[in-house]
């Protein structure tokens, strides 16, 4: 198992009158090279949950396993540095983390922080720049001269430069145009497929969940209310709406068609699946008219 949560609870300001439990008794498992999407209404504890993954918050109760690492409430901060390299975190709007004078220095900052030599870190930075789809002509420029989408790529390259095995993404496409969003999601999919990274994605885009995720976790008020494949989770649209979530657009359309008498073997979740199932029926329908 790449990631396993065992009865994890997290309370902010524990032991004070203002204590607030943001994550309560959460247990789930993600296999090696898995792709987990976490969805839920705003304030449901998604961000708190993922910050447990590299122990920015240590659990108040319970145990977290991430590959060879184990985090319990008693784990000391000193022991966590290797975990922070193992789990790469891309926070919301990561472009605001840029600070160095050149893009190369900014990307090399992480690896140098974990003890890599300057020359190796710079070489790695150039490599990562290509990975995220910018060429090395950018390396000497100031990160503050870039467009918003390019800045975000640089920030993500800085995280990838630490060669994490688990990549945690908190709404990585928020505020991007449709093309930028697609390019970003394709990049993560490629890292998942080619380099075998385990990916944890927090998102409000049900289309992305349906297209990329292998497992989905639904959070509500700090609790894990559903965990399963996208098909399990999206099978009950009424339940999702009651939790202030929705099904992907393709599935919505498929349901409207179902109301008009089309019966799906499995509910299509993406436009491709929908088109495939419609195409499979098409000849049969056409034959009636001949």
């Amino acid at each position, binding site marked *: 198992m790449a990631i396993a949560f065992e009865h994890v609870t997290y309370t902010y300001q524990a032991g004070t009158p203002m204590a607030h439990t943001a994550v309560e008794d959460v247990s789930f498992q993600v296999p090696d090279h898995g792709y987990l999407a976490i969805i839920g209404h705003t304030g449901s504890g998604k961000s708190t949950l993922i910050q447990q993954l590299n122990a920015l918050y240590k659990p108040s109760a319970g145990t977290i396993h991430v590959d060879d690492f184990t985090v319990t409430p008693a784990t000391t901060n000193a022991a966590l540095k290797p975990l922070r390299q193992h789990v790469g975190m891309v926070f919301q709007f990561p472009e605001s983390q840029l*600070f*160095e*004078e050149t893009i190369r220095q900014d990307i090399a900052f992480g690896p140098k922080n974990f003890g890599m030599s300057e020359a190796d870190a710079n070489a790695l930075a150039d490599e990562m720049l290509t990975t995220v789809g910018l060429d090395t002509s950018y390396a000497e420029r*100031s990160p*503050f001269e870039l467009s918003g989408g390019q800045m975000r790529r640089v920030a993500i390259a800085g995280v990838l430069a630490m060669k994490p095995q688990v990549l945690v993404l908190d709404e990585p496409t928020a505020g991007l145009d449709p093309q930028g969003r697609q390019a970003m999601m394709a990049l993560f999919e490629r890292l998942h497929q080619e380099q075998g990274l385990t990916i944890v994605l927090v998102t409000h885009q049900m289309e992305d969940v349906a297209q990329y995720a292998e497992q989905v976790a639904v959070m509500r008020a700090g609790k894990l209310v559903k965990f399963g494949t996208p098909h399990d989770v999206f099978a009950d649209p009424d339940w999702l709406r009651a939790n202030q979530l929705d099904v992907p657009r393709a599935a919505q359309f498929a349901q409207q068609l179902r109301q008009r008498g089309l019966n799906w073997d499995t509910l299509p979740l993406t436009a491709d699946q929908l088109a495939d199932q419609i195409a499979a029926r098409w000849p049969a329908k056409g034959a009636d008219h001949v």
Partner: protein
Amino acid sequence: MTRHKTFRLVVDALLMAIVLLQNIIPFLGYVPLGPFSMTLIGLTVIVAGTALGPKDGLVIGGFWGLITFVRAFTWPSSPVAPLIFTNPLISILPRLLMGLAAGGLYTWGRNRHWSQRRAMQVAAGCAALVNTLLVLGLVFFFYQTPAVATAFGAKGNQTLGYVLMISLLTNGIPEFILDILVAPLIARPLRNRWDRLKA
């Protein structure tokens, strides 16, 4: 014209907000070093001066001084503060002049065709010195009393001059180095954008 005036107004307001944050959140404003602490607020003033100009340095520096002054009565930042910073000459004047020095020296250096980085480093270093030397100098000048010396951490028969020298070494020098290293890093992108806007 009005566009860059509005931009300046907003940036000044944001820098003031940063100074307020640095006062409210201890970690952002002060790095404790034994009995003394090194402040990071001077850095913000230097950035204001070098990135925008002497006028903005004056405004942000004055704002910091005013806060130091009021805090000395209501919410002292250190045991020394109620003894010395209740005097506006010590709390406000050095901060005011530090922002002015940062902005003025940057412009002066650029007019002598120094590189942007060099002009910023010199401006940052001099501004840090202006602040440290004026505060410590004015304290020495106005408050030659054992009470102030004790509050500064003097033991036995150590004199005020001696403890001020120590605080110059433990605070003044790290602040000086930090400001030279960090101020240009923050100020350069801001300055470039500001210059482009004015052009």
